[in-house]
């Protein structure tokens, strides 16, 4: 196409022709069926990853698809937001493995083109709720280009019962509207006082709560005051308005032993039940996790720090389990992701695994009567 003896003008013309051809190809890709395009792009991403041609997460390819849809080439995606969750930072500088991982997620989000409308931080910014840990987290998240919506996790909360976190990031529960969706952010990690009677210090209380399998703590709950607030917040919302709820713990009962659990889940679900389209996006479980209860679809978020194993019982039949992470690879089973909010208010949930092909759990596959996870009785490994 380009020859050594071309004039500057000839080169420019050739370049313009080439660009037009590229543009036509891109347009045709955008016009093709979104599902088909996604599948194709994922396939290429996988092939490319297998051949070590590109960083194996192939995040960009997936988002070309989303962008195409968002620009109206395909009906479907109204807008996109990204998520980073469960960074569990220690105040040990930016060389600590968890700080590096959180920064990696920030870089991922900043590389999204087009940029998501906002970023949800899913809670557990700190490991032991310390002000220096929260400050490090704030510093890392400051680099995010899109606006950030913060949610609190138990690791942020139980040193000073949220005092510092609220001072830095604002209220622990709130709602906002964005492009026709009503978003609700909850603090679902409220625990009944188990510390006063035992005389635990704030540090001991925090250490107990930070132990996933520490049975001295209470179960998580949203609690009566927040449930009342939620009722009032939703009272003015039309029942046809799609609702997306962010909660740190899953708003259902999966496994009490690890607080993969919200004790008043049924009561919260009852408040959400009158609404036609409800999605809950939660952190805490550090794994691909999918569920549906009536009109509510549930999606977990990945952690940047480490993956949890699946709980020994309670795995929803809607969950198609993720792979067993390789402990020899720090980033395996970890990652971040994004959420395509569809025109009708449901979501397609992207899991951007850092060292595997991405997985997308679509609203469509959760809508039918089939159970994608089949007879899940517990972890397959």
């Amino acid at each position, binding site marked *: 196409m380009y020859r050594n003896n071309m004039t500057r003008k000839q080169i420019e013309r050739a370049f313009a022709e080439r660009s037009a051809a590229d543009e036509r190809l891109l347009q045709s890709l955008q016009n093709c069926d979104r599902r088909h395009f996604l599948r194709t792009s994922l396939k290429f991403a996988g092939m490319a990853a297998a051949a070590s041609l590109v960083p194996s997460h192939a995040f960009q390819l997936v988002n070309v698809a989303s962008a195409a849809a968002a620009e109206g080439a395909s009906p479907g995606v109204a807008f996109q937001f990204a998520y980073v969750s469960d960074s*569990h930072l*220690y105040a*040990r500088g930016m060389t*600590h*493995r968890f700080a590096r991982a959180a920064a990696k997620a920030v870089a991922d989000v900043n590389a999204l083109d087009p940029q998501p409308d906002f970023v949800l931080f899913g809670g557990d910014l700190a*490991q032991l709720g310390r002000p220096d840990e929260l400050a490090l987290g704030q510093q890392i998240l400051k680099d995010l280009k899109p606006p950030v919506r913060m949610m609190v996790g138990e690791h942020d909360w139980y040193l000073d019962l949220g005092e510092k976190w609220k001072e830095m990031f604002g209220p622990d529960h709130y709602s906002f509207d964005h492009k026709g969706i009503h978003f609700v952010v909850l603090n679902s990690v409220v625990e009944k006082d188990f510390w006063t009677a035992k005389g635990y210090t704030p540090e001991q209380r925090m250490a107990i709560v930070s*132990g*996933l*399998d*520490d049975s001295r703590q209470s179960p998580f709950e949203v609690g009566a005051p927040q449930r009342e607030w939620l009722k009032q917040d939703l009272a003015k919302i039309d029942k046809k308005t799609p609702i997306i709820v962010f909660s740190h713990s899953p708003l259902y009962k999966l496994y009490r*032993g*690890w607080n993969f659990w919200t004790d008043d889940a049924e009561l919260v679900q009852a408040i959400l039940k009158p609404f036609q389209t409800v999605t809950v996006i939660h952190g805490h479980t550090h794994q691909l996790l999918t569920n549906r209860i009536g009109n509510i679809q549930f999606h977990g978020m990945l952690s940047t720090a*480490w*993956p*949890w*194993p699946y709980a*020994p019982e309670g795995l929803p039949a809607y969950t198609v389990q993720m792979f*067993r992470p*390789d*402990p*020899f690879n*720090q980033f395996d089973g970890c990652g971040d992701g994004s959420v395509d909010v569809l025109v009708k208010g449901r979501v397609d949930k992207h899991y951007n695994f850092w060292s595997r092909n991405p997985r997308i759990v679509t609203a469509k596959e959760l809508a039918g009567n089939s159970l994608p996870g089949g007879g899940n009785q517990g*972890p397959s*490994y």
Partner: protein
Amino acid sequence: MKRTLVAGSLLLGSIALGMLGVFAGGPSDVESARRGLVGAPDEWASRAVWACDQRKLVIVEGVRPDERIPPDKAQQVADVLMDLMRFCNEEITVRIGMNQMMTVAANGRVYENYVPGGPLPIVKASFGEPTPRELSIWKAELDKLVAEGDRLFHSDEIGGNGVACAMCHPNASNTHPETYPKFQTQLKKVALLRDMVNWCILNPLEGKELPPDDPRMQALEAYILAQRSGKPLDVGKH
């Protein structure tokens, strides 16, 4: 624990002589033969004392069958019988030698020598069906080790960067101790559980390897295995 047992058995033993219905049994064939020896020295003499269940026998050497057992020795006999009665229902023979050495035998096999002042042999004498008390002692000892392993597994003290084992392995899940030894592909060799524990200490925890016989390694292994109790052994499984 053992000290308490000795004290306890002494206390009970002082009441036991009357309570237990201890009585002298008839001489055995061997003893009859010995009695036949004219002018036999005392060390050839022995006297059998049975507990009321007819299953526990104490043979006191150096005392003739028709002779009174000296009070201190009688006390010792009562103590031992009392403990045997409390601890199990098996047939047990204890021989108290001239040198005060006590030998405990069950099913015809010498089980253990007992040095007076040392731990009671009965603590370790598991013959047949263990008693609730034996079980509680063994469980307490095991629990102590498992609890230490539990503490270390959840603590940042064996690592160097704040990370603890339980952060990736709540309840030791996903450790699969029952599948070791196995060829650990990432290590390119057959690994024992402790090799993987050390790999985790070195890498995600950024700490220092533990020697295999380090009490902390033993405690960690105890905790991990205890969490998977009941899982079938499946060596080499991937």
